[in-house]
């Protein structure tokens, strides 16, 4: 089971089972780190209070390539395009997107999964990209705000954000757009409560929530996230 976790595979692993957890997360990467950090460390982990994490793992050194601390090659699809990059395995997905690939729509704000400004979709489910390692996105489909629509070809939702003035300083907006896009894909005609729930992981400091509710409702009337 352990050997199948993302870190060991640099190529798109067809065998990778679909993940149910929408917040693909830190547990995976921690295990990955332990594994990569050498047997000794892992053994300490087994003996220590963190034993829960590695119990049951096959601690077989021969199948464990040690990654990092230097850059490792990674490949994943971002907004439908195959992207490759070299980055240390400790690189978070938000930093890989923003700093390495130059997809600067995705913002790093709280850096601990509290504010949602870094929200992206992984295989269609929203995650906080600050709390996920880039290597854990290997072989998967990442959708950022840039993938939801472009200035030349915005989505109905993005048009509705403009129409309803659903932004002020705009720094939370990309995360909001991604969360709302995911919401509309799952639920094309959400109630106001469902919208509020759908963006409850996203903080807007300027206070544009009501405008965002209105924008999502407008987009829903016009065909949801799909309509371009």
């Amino acid at each position, binding site marked *: 089971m352990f050997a199948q976790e993302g870190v060991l595979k640099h190529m798109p692993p067809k065998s990778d089972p679909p993940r149910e957890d929408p917040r693909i997360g830190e547990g995976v990467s921690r295990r990955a780190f332990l594994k990569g950090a050498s047997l000794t460390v892992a053994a300490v982990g087994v003996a220590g209070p963190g034993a829960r994490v590695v119990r049951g793992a096959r601690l077989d050194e021969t199948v464990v390539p040690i990654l990092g601390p230097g850059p490792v090659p990674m490949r994943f699809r971002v907004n439908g395009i195959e992207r490759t990059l070299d980055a*240390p395995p*400790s690189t978070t997905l938000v*930093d890989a997107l*923003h*700093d390495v690939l*130059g*997809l*600067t*729509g*995705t*913002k*790093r*704000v*709280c*850096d*601990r999964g*509290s*504010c949602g*400004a870094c929200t992206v979709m992984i295989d269609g489910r929203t995650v906080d990209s600050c709390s996920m390692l880039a290597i854990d996105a290997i072989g998967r489909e990442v959708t*950022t*705000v*840039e993938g*939801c*629509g*472009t*200035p030349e070809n*915005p989505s109905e939702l*993005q048009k509705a*954000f*403009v*129409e309803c*003035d*659903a*932004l*002020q*300083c*705009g*720094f*939370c*907006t*990309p995360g909001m*757009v991604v969360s709302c896009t995911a919401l509309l894909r799952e639920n094309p005609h959400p109630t106001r409560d469902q*919208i*509020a*729930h759908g*963006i*409850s992981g*996203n*903080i*807007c*400091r*300027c*206070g*544009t*929530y*009501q*405008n*965002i*509710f209105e924008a999502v409702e407008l987009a829903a009337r016009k065909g949801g996230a799909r309509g371009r």
Partner: protein
Amino acid sequence: MVVEMKIRVGFDGHYKDLTVQIADGDIRPYQPGDPLKVVGKSEKRLEALAKATGTAKYTFDQRPTGLLYGAILRCPHANADITTLDTTTAEQMPGVMAVLKSPEIFSTNSCRYAGEEVAAVAATSEAIAEEALRSIFVEYDVLPFAVTIDDAMGENAPQVGRRDQVNVERTTPRLARQRGGGIDEEGEKQNLEQMREKEAKVDALLREAPVVVSRTFETAVQTHCPLEPHGVLCEWKEGKLICWASTQATFGVKGELSSERGPVGADTQVICDHVGGGFGSKFSAGREGVIGALLAKKAGAPVRMLLDRRGEQTAVGNRPSSRQKLTLGVSRDGEILAYRVRSWGTPGTGTGGAGANNTGVYKLGEVDKVEYGVRTNTGGARAHRAPGWPQGAYGLESIVDEAALAIGMDPIEFRKRNDDHPIRMAEYDIAAERSKWKEKRARKQGIGPIRRGIGIASNLWFSAGGGGAAVMVRIHKSGRVEVRNGAQDIGTGTRTVMGQVAAEELGLGLADVQVFIGNTDDPRGPASGGSTTIGTITPAARLAAHDAKVRLLEIVADRKGWDASTLDLRDGSVVDANGKALIPFRTACGLLDEDAIEVLAERPTIDRRNPNYAGFSDTNAGVQIAEVAVDIETGEVRVERVTAVADAGKLINPMLAESQVRGGVIQGVSFALFERRTMDRQEGRMVNADMEAYKILGSMDCPEIDVVTLDVYNGKSNTSVMGLGEPPIVATAAAVANAVADAIGVRITSLPITPRKVLEALGATRTRSDEEGTKL
């Protein structure tokens, strides 16, 4: 130089004619009935699509080649002096390109709060920068500290400051000082005498007053927490500093970094296309700005020096706390006779800037106010959206409500009795009607744990804008129009509104003009503070566009043999006196000999001290009514609805104005219910320096906000506008608190109103009589 003219001012049902003096060369303020086509229209924000598609580039998003990452080492102690600071290991670390020691830049070894800057590095990656910080060896002389006002005001309190700085210092009335800062003994003697007189006067009035209410109110420290952190991205080019800054004062940052007396002292260009929130905390380059500039210089490469969230929450500002002991004496028929205020607040390691504005809004009779700033070993306060006002309004509006309750008068009637603001008097009625105040106020509580309440509070603000700004309008031969000012748009809509005003004057649509802001190489603009930006920029934009139009029409008249005085620009054409289109705007521009018409117009003022004209009202008002549901079993308060009646002079863009009001209300509710900096009194550190334990209102807590905006032709400048960024946050927390008191019949005397406080207050009503309560 002034000219006199007759103008009409006011708002629906409340117009009057005034003869006013306006600056020579300026144009008549917008008048009721002016056929405006772009101004007053809810145009979409110009940068909205860029923001909604993630293509808007903030300081955080700049990625010049060879970019280095800056990071700051912060003091872990609440009060300490640095005795050893050794950065040798960091300097030798591969990937580290520059290291700086804070004491060498800022000339002090003292760290007076946990989070103060100690050293900084620039490295090829953030990981290396952080590793380098960990390798820096620092020894501190650790001193006793105080991080709460109680600890700092206690009898054997440790000294927070240095030298002869005392922990508690009077700020109102201001201490009399000599040149150089020492206390002016003679001036202080006079001060104390006047204070004693005032105190005696109010004492007498309170003794005679038939009803006196007294209570102490407290508010917690609130951090700004803008989503884009403070900071800069600096690059040096041929001795000139190019500084991308996340700022609400491009020219302020430029001034600081280029000042000969400052640590950078170089020709600086500040650029800020977009800024991810400021709320008052981003006026200064800050230490992080200076550090960024110097790291980039030392490394010879561009450096991104933006704060991490912990730094953001601890080191770059907050709304100070307040403790307000208020006493109000009223007559039985509801006239406020006398008011006493004793208040304290901590702005961090200084004493200034922690005032609570609790003596505004109403006619308060004789006022005796003494206020103190209390030094604590905490991060320093900065202006925070309506500095001092939400805290002051919470105190004042609470005690006003208590007085109304004591004499059995409706809170709105009581306020009206003590108010004469020409706009607010109308707003009370609008707010009451929209919210069904009378009916809801009179309702009986149902059975079950949910108690509903409704409460009111008022806004007040002052800003019609000021001088010191200029706008350039350039009409190209091709018909392209540029409107330029170097100030920033912090999300308030400055860019859009400036374009609307210019487009209106030129008879064009908003899409026909290109607006450039956020670059100090363009004409000077204001800081986004005091809600003055639109009032400062738009009169200059309008005048520049007007003068450019006059020049264009003169040229057209000359070429065509028409009479320039009969021509105008309307709907994209040159029109004659009857409004008949003669030639398209673009064709008219083609008649230019030169490449372009360029007009730079200063913001018209009569004089520096009095930048604005006599108008309808020197202040704008506003009334808010909050409705809450309180669960008396859990103590949870939900704000269900806020009715916000707002005015801001002539509204250039009603949709963006409404967004400002909604935002102010949201932040006000957040202040009322959630936000609180928590200090660890043992360790001296901020416990919740993140966005998880520091709670900010989210989508699930969002009330329904019903905004009503009044369009007031104020006449104070040629665009008649007043500021709107700040006033809508003033009343909200106060209205919420009053609604909670209405719901549960007991007053919560500190913000935020947490479930625990609600439960404690409910419990206390059954077990103890409040000695501060009401004397009848």
